[in-house]
C-alpha cells in the first residue's frame, strides 16, 4: 500500500522522512502574486495586512457534499482566526511586506518552527484548499495532468488510492497533497501527507492539490467517518481545472 512515493513531513525532523530524495528546505524567495492589502495606518505608514479571501464560490455551493455550516465555521471561524492572528503577530516586524508564501518558508525555519508558522501556513493552506474544490467537482483530469498522473502513478485509479490512503493515515491533524517536484534529473508528481500546519512548500515542492484532514474539516458532515469524507472530496469536489492551472504555473517556475 505505502510506496516510496508516500512521504510524510515532520516539522521536528526537518524536511522529509524519506532520505532518498534530494533537496534541502527551500530558501527565499519565490515570488508569487501577493494576496495582500496595503493600507495606511494612523501614523501614515503603509502597513501590509493579510485579508481573509473568500472561497471562489458561495458558502452553500458545495452542498450536499460539504455543508454550508461547515464552510461557515471552517472558513468563517477557523481560517479567519488564522489570518487575524497572523496579522497581529507580524505587525511591526520585519515580516510585514513579505508575501504569505515567503512568511511560511521563513517561519518554517528548517523544522524549528517560529511562532508565526502555524498561523501563516494555515492561512496559506486554507486558501489553497478552497481553491482546490469547486461545485460540481470530481471526475477525472485530462490532458497533460492526466498523462503525468498516469506516468508517475501507473493509472489515475492508483493515484486516487494513494492519495486517499495518505489522507486516511495522517494521524491526528494534517493535510494530504498532490505535489510536483522538479529537480535537475526528474520532474514528477508525488503524494505527500503532512502534520498540523506543515505543507510541501517548505520542502521545495509545488503543491497542486490538497485535502484538509483536520477533524474540523469534516466533523459536522461526516463525524468520525474520515474515509467517507475523503471519497466524497475525490468524487464530488476536486477542481481538476485548478490543479491543471497550478501544474502549468509550476512548470514555468521550475524552468526558471
Amino acid at each position, binding site marked *: 500500500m505505502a510506496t516510496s512515493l508516500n512521504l510524510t513531513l515532520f516539522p521536528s525532523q526537518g524536511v522529509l522522512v524519506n532520505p532518498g530524495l534530494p533537496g534541502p528546505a527551500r530558501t527565499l524567495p519565490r515570488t508569487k502574486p501577493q494576496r495582500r492589502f496595503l493600507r495606511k495606518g494612523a501614523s501614515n505608514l503603509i502597513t501590509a495586512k493579510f485579508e481573509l479571501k473568500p472561497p471562489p464560490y458561495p458558502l452553500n455551493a458545495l452542498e450536499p457534499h460539504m455543508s454550508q455550516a461547515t464552510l461557515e465555521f471552517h472558513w468563517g471561524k477557523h481560517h479567519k482566526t488564522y489570518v487575524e492572528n497572523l496579522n497581529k503577530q507580524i505587525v511591526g516586524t520585519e515580516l510585514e511586506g513579505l508575501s504569505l508564501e515567503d512568511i511560511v518558508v521563513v517561519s518554517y525555519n528548517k523544522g524549528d518552527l517560529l511562532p508565526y508558522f502555524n498561523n501563516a501556513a494555515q492561512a496559506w493552506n486554507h486558501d489553497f484548499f478552497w481553491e482546490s474544490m469547486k461545485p460540481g467537482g470530481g471526475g477525472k483530469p485530462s490532458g497533460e495532468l492526466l498523462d503525468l498522473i498516469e506516468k508517475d502513478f501507473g493509472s489515475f485509479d492508483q493515484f486516487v488510492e494513494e492519495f486517499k490512503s495518505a489522507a486516511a493515515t495522517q494521524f491526528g491533524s494534517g493535510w494530504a497533497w498532490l505535489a510536483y517536484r522538479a529537480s535537475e534529473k526528474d520532474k514528477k508528481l508525488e503524494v505527500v501527507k503532512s502534520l498540523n500546519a506543515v505543507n510541501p512548500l517548505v520542502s521545495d515542492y509545488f503543491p497542486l492539490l490538497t485535502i484538509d484532514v483536520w*477533524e474540523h474539516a469534516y466533523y459536522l458532515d461526516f463525524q468520525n467517518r474520515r474515509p467517507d469524507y475523503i471519497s466524497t472530496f475525490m468524487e464530488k469536489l476536486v477542481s481538476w481545472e485548478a490543479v491543471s492551472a497550478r501544474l502549468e504555473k509550476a512548470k514555468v517556475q521550475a524552468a526558471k
Partner: protein
Amino acid sequence: MALRSLALATRKTLTLGLNSTRLSQSRALQTFSLPDLPYDYGALEPAISGEIMQLHHQKHHQTYITNYNKALEQLHDAIQKGDSSTVAKLQSAIKFNGGGHINHSIFWQNLAPIREGGGEPPKGSLGWVIDTNFGSLESLIQNINAEGAALQGSGWVWLGLDKELKKLVIETTANQDPLVTKGPHLVPLLGIDVWEHAYYLQYKNVRPDYLKNIWKVINWKYASEVYEKESA
C-alpha cells in the same frame, strides 16, 4: 502448522465480534475490548453532549481498539517470523492506536455526572498538594486550560504525578501519545482530550469554552485515588 492457522482463523472471526477477550489463550495474545462507560451517554450534559459521548465512545475509542488489536496481531506474526522490518513499521500504529485506547480508558474515568460527584473539588492529600504546588485549584485549572487551548492540532492535556520528583506536573502530548512518553516516571491523574472530535459538535471552534465547562464534570475522586495509590 494447521493447528496454528486454525487458532488464528478462530481468533480473527471472534475478534470481529468486538468483545472477545478470552479466546486467544492458545496464542497468548490478548485482545482488547471497549470498556463500558460508568454512566449514560447523556449523563454529562450540558457540559458534554450525549451525542458527543456516544460517538466518542462507540466510534472513536472503538476504532482505536479495533486497530490496536489488528496491529498487535500483525506484530505478533512479524515477531514469530523474525520480520524486523515489519516490527519496526508497526510501531507508529501501535503507539497511535494503543495510546488511543489507554488515553480514552483513563478519560472516561476522569468524568462523572454531577450527581455522582462530577465537579466536586478534590479533598484529602490531592487537594492539599494542588494548593501547595499551584496556589489554588482555580490556578491549576487556569494553567491546564491555557495549555489545552494552546495545543496545536490534536492531543491531550494532562495533570500528572511525577513519581520520581514527587510533584504534580501539567503536560501536553500530541495525537494519542500517552503521558508516559513525556517521562517514564509520569503517572496520569487527569487527562483532557483536546482533539476536535471531543468537542466540535457542541463547541465548534471554541475550544476554550469546552475547557471551561468540562470542569463541571471532572471526577476528582478518581484522580485522588490514583494520586494516593501512586504517591504511597
